[in-house]
């Protein structure tokens, strides 16, 4: 880094403006997170005295303990979300990768079929028809419906298709000359070649399922089937009463804001853990799509 500066002799105004702006932006993102961490590790008295502090004034884990103790709900929500994420990601990726490969090749009727797929990206019947449809299928209030509604992303199919198209044709042609059929080329040539792309989009899919809340909110009523995101919504809506109850019951030092923030971190924990290591794959995946556009 020093060398680049030397090469440039002096920092230009552009460098300074960029550094200052980017640092301010970064702090604006980090500080609210940090503030939330601090609150989740504080007692109510410390929070009331000073809602914003750089360090937990009276350090306590009681907010987290409260979450773990008081909730079978949290555990079942974690279970539900993990189940939905795993099944949804695997199932969705199989469908999407197969389709993406097929659309990267030439075949009769490709154009109309592609259009049929593309239209669904921009047009849907809307919420009420979908709700009625699920009701008719008798799959309201099921994880099956939650998974199915979030299974396929047409946008990601198109980006993966672009990725498949960018692989050199010679390899496929060589396999064809050897007499391999399309399925074999797909399985033995393309899949191994495109492993990084597929891994990346699996990550996208997994995060999508993890964060999915709209349709789950509309169709899940049974508290035992609630997902993590719904659980968080529920905590945010009810944490005030919960905290009061817990205070009057055991005099515990938990409080609404503390519990809210603690549950935020419980919900995003897996994402926080994997994100720093997987960040570059996400960016790469995004770039695959961007290059063609």
């Amino acid at each position, binding site marked *: 880094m020093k060398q680049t500066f030397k090469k440039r002799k002096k920092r230009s105004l552009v460098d300074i403006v960029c550094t200052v702006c980017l640092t301010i932006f970064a702090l604006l*993102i980090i500080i609210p997170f940090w503030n939330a961490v601090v609150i989740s590790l504080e007692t109510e008295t410390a929070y009331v005295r000073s809602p914003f502090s750089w360090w937990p004034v009276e350090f306590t884990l009681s907010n987290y303990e409260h979450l773990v103790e008081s909730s079978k709900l949290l555990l079942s929500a974690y279970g539900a979300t993990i189940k939905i994420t795993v099944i949804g990601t695997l199932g969705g990726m*199989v*469908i999407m990768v197969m389709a993406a490969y097929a659309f990267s090749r030439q075949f009769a009727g490709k154009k109309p079929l592609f259009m049929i797929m593309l239209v669904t990206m921009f047009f849907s*019947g809307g919420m009420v028809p979908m709700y009625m449809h699920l009701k008719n299928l008798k799959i309201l209030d099921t994880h099956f419906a939650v998974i*199915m509604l979030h299974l396929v992303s047409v946008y990601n199919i198109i980006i993966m298709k672009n990725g498949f198209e960018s692989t050199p044709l010679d390899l496929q042609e060589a396999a064809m000359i050897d007499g391999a059929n399309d399925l074999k080329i797909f399985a033995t040539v393309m899949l191994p070649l495109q492993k990084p792309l597929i891994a990346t989009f699996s990550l996208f899919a997994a995060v999508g399922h993890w964060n999915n809340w709209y349709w789950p909110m509309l169709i899940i009523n049974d508290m035992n089937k609630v997902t993590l995101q719904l659980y968080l919504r529920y905590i945010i809506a009810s944490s005030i009463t919960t905290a009061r109850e817990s205070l009057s019951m055991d005099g515990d030092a938990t409080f609404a804001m503390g519990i809210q923030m603690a549950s935020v971190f419980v919900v995003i924990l897996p994402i926080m853990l994997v994100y720093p290591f997987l960040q570059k794959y996400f960016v790469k995946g*995004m770039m695959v799509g961007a290059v063609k556009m």
Partner: protein
Amino acid sequence: MKNKKSGLLLEIWKGRYLYLLLLPLFLWLCVFCYIPMGGIVLAFKNYKASLGIWGSEWVGFENFKRIFITPDAMAAIKNTFTVSFGRLLVEFPMGIILAIMITEMPGTRVKKIYQTVFNFPHFLSWIVVSAILTNFLSNRGGINELIAALGGERINFLADKGLFRPILYLTSNWKEMGWSAIIYMAAITGIDPTLYDAASIDGATRLRKIWHITLSGIKSTIAVMFILEVGNVMNAGFDQIFNMQNDVVKGVAQILDTYVYDITFQGIPNYGFSTAVGLFKSVINFILILVANRTVYWLTGEKMYG
């Protein structure tokens, strides 16, 4: 004629494995996209649960006419456009600006650290982001503590009709600007580096290089992204608004999607009317996308999909 037909059959036979690979996708599209579209008929009916969808009475375009005489619906339409254009104005350029700033930074490690920070919120749901930011913007949150410490008057950011929309744009930028910058950064890396060297020899300043090489090098990307956004005007950000709104700001925050949610799940539902509002939105959305796509194709010769 016969030859042509058998030629087509041969083509189909040749592609048999590819069709097989597409089969699961089209089954899914059928069951979870196209069949539900049948429910659109609800929009043309006076739906009575006891009579079912098909038994209910046809009312033609009555439900659609009702949209235009329902003040709440009209307000929601107006808000949808206002919020979306606000986003185009305030949010759209930020991704581009951020991308240029990051690429102008010296040193790949610094770039990576900044990107790691900027991209992170994209991977959280609006439920999470709203919880964190609502706290931070609240009366006793970080911003107001700072204002108070500097001797200013506390501002109730989230319960102020005039401030709520700007807050929407800012918090949306907070979550997404890093992510939207990636596409432009990818486009910038695609620019021929010799252009910059040549410009340096000609004595161009860095600002001129940013303007003439970087920006002009990514203009087709910008056009495409702009089209995507314009086509998306009818989607003014349900996830964000649904999680951040409150009763005080409902008047400026209520967009079509939240309106449909409200009339469907709160109070006495009228499924026919709800569907009509949803369909009204979908159709305009679809037309806007088609028009926008055509425009970009006509302008740049770049086709977005396919």
